[in-house]
């Protein structure tokens, strides 16, 4: 303390540069072409990718709200200065909901076979399609209950993220501790609500693809993946905004902390990956090991790339203090993790939907770029709606003087 330069805290209005806007439109254009190509060549492939990308960015958007909630209940000051970024990420939620509405519609209209348990006669002992294992799960896995769950879950997520954002913006006008305390209470309620609802969303949309199979830490695994992606996107956005002349109040100390988050949760993701894999490997019960058998047989290269890109590389590159404070290194690790988590989701979804002939081609890459463009468009547009710096946040002074040794 005492040896800091005085950093002026003042309002910053972000304006989306024309170039960035054009890039997002270009990406969305590529995405549209990929969707058309996918639909015309192999609609299963299209639907699988549609689910993958929707889920990916749903996770990123929701983790924005979760990040704010964790920072709020822990009274964190170190993240106060860039909290507009996770807030803006969460404004993508309605777009993700729209995507899932389309997916549910496609299931109702039998446009695809993504969810095997929605098959006609699957729980009917007289039907030729009868499946004994799935019949046992029908009490939970049936469309009316599933749609009901999803509507409730999405409504809760939307309300929490909206109210937290609204209070946060009101704080900028009023100042004082009132809104901070209110958001803290809301966050404390959100955390358990999130834990249960996120677990259900993971079962409903992803785990039920491999209907016979189950894992009790599946949702933790997906939380870790989405969380790492979201932190990486926050870090890359901070770097982008600083280079564009905004957020000068963010120092290398904050970047160091964001780097530690990326580093630690990459390890956490690996820990959960192994926890899931090791027990199944040990027990070797056929209905459990088939999950990894399919992936190991037909997705062997990606199976290993997944571990290297999401664990080994960030672990080694981000181990030292200096590397976490190095912008180029953070861009490299952030981009790797963003791609890595997409690959992780790819080998989670593809074996049960497209099957052994799944491969990464124009449809996969194009659709991801399209969704990335849409997400970036919504995200950056929301960033322009309020001052990037929450000038009247009670902890903004603590943020400015934040120091990591």
């Amino acid at each position: 303390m005492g040896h800091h330069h005085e950093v002026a805290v003042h309002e910053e209005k972000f304006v989306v540069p024309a170039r960035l806007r054009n890039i997002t439109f270009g990406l969305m254009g590529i995405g549209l072409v990929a969707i058309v190509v996918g639909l015309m060549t192999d609609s299963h492939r299209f639907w699988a990718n549609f689910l993958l990308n929707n889920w990916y960015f749903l996770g990123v958007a929701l983790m924005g709200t979760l990040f704010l909630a964790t920072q709020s209940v822990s009274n964190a000051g170190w993240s106060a200065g860039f909290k507009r970024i996770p807030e803006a990420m969460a404004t993508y939620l309605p777009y993700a909901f729209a995507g899932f509405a389309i997916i549910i519609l496609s299931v109702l209209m039998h446009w695809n076979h993504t969810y095997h348990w929605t098959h006609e006669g699957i729980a009917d002992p007289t039907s030729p399609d009868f499946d004994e294992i799935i019949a046992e799960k029908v009490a939970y896995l049936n469309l009316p209950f599933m749609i009901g769950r999803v509507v409730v879950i999405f409504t809760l997520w939307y309300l929490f993220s909206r109210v937290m954002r609204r209070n946060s913006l009101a704080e900028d006008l009023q100042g004082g501790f009132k809104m901070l305390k209110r958001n803290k209470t809301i966050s404390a309620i959100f955390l358990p609500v999130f834990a249960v609802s996120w677990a259900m969303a993971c079962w409903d949309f992803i785990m039920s693809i491999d209907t016979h199979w189950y894992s009790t830490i599946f949702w933790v695994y997906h939380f870790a993946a989405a969380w790492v992606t979201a932190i990486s996107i926050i870090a890359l956005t901070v770097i982008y905004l600083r280079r564009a002349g905004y957020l000068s109040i963010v120092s290398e100390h904050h970047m160091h902390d964001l780097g530690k988050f990326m580093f630690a949760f990459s390890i956490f993701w690996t820990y959960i990956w192994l926890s899931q894999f090791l027990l199944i490997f040990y027990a070797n019960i056929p209905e459990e090991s088939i999950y990894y058998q399919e992936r190991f047989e037909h997705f062997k290269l990606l199976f290993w790339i997944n571990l290297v890109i999401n664990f080994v590389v960030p672990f080694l590159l981000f181990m030292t203090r200096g590397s976490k404070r190095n912008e180029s290194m953070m861009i490299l690790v952030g981009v790797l993790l963003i791609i890595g988590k997409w690959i992780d989701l790819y080998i989670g979804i593809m074996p049960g939907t497209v099957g052994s002939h799944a491969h990464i081609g124009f449809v996969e890459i194009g659709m991801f770029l399209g969704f990335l463009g849409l997400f970036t468009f919504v995200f950056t547009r929301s960033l322009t709606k309020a001052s990037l710096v929450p000038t009247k946040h009670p902890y903004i002074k603590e943020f400015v003087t934040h120091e990591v040794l």
Partner: protein
Amino acid sequence: MSSQKYIIGTFNDEEPLLEAVKEVRAAGTPIHECYTPFPVHGLDEALGYRRSRLPRAAFMFGVLGFSLALFMQAWMLGYDWPMNIGGKPALAWPDFVPVTFELTVLITALGMVGTYLVASGFLPGNEAKMPDIRCTSHVFCIAIPSNTADYDKIHALLMRHGADEVEEREIEL
């Protein structure tokens, strides 16, 4: 280690000490060490300390623990006494991960503590080296080697910054 002559300045508070340290260093006089009852924020920086090299030792101990753990398990289960456990291959790598992880952490932690104790001279039995026993409770001391300092100048400087006492002593630090 033999005794040497030091100018010992004693302060009642950390702020005057910090200011004094800055001025002594600015005058180009080397400082041996400061002795404080608690970590003083900014003192490391004022004394111009380089960052600790402990993380490098930690990395090497980590590599050592990782290799030892892998070698131990591979040798025991794969070569010395192979067993059929649930039909798994003798060298089943997923089984090795938890033990490898734990031993890496253990060897790293023990190695770091050991390195720290040796490098700082804090091993059990080591004599505590400080100019004044009160440094453990409420007094802040600065030790400046006499052979590179001008006693009168330093004395005046420290007194000006509010030192309670300044004296020259032959002492082992």
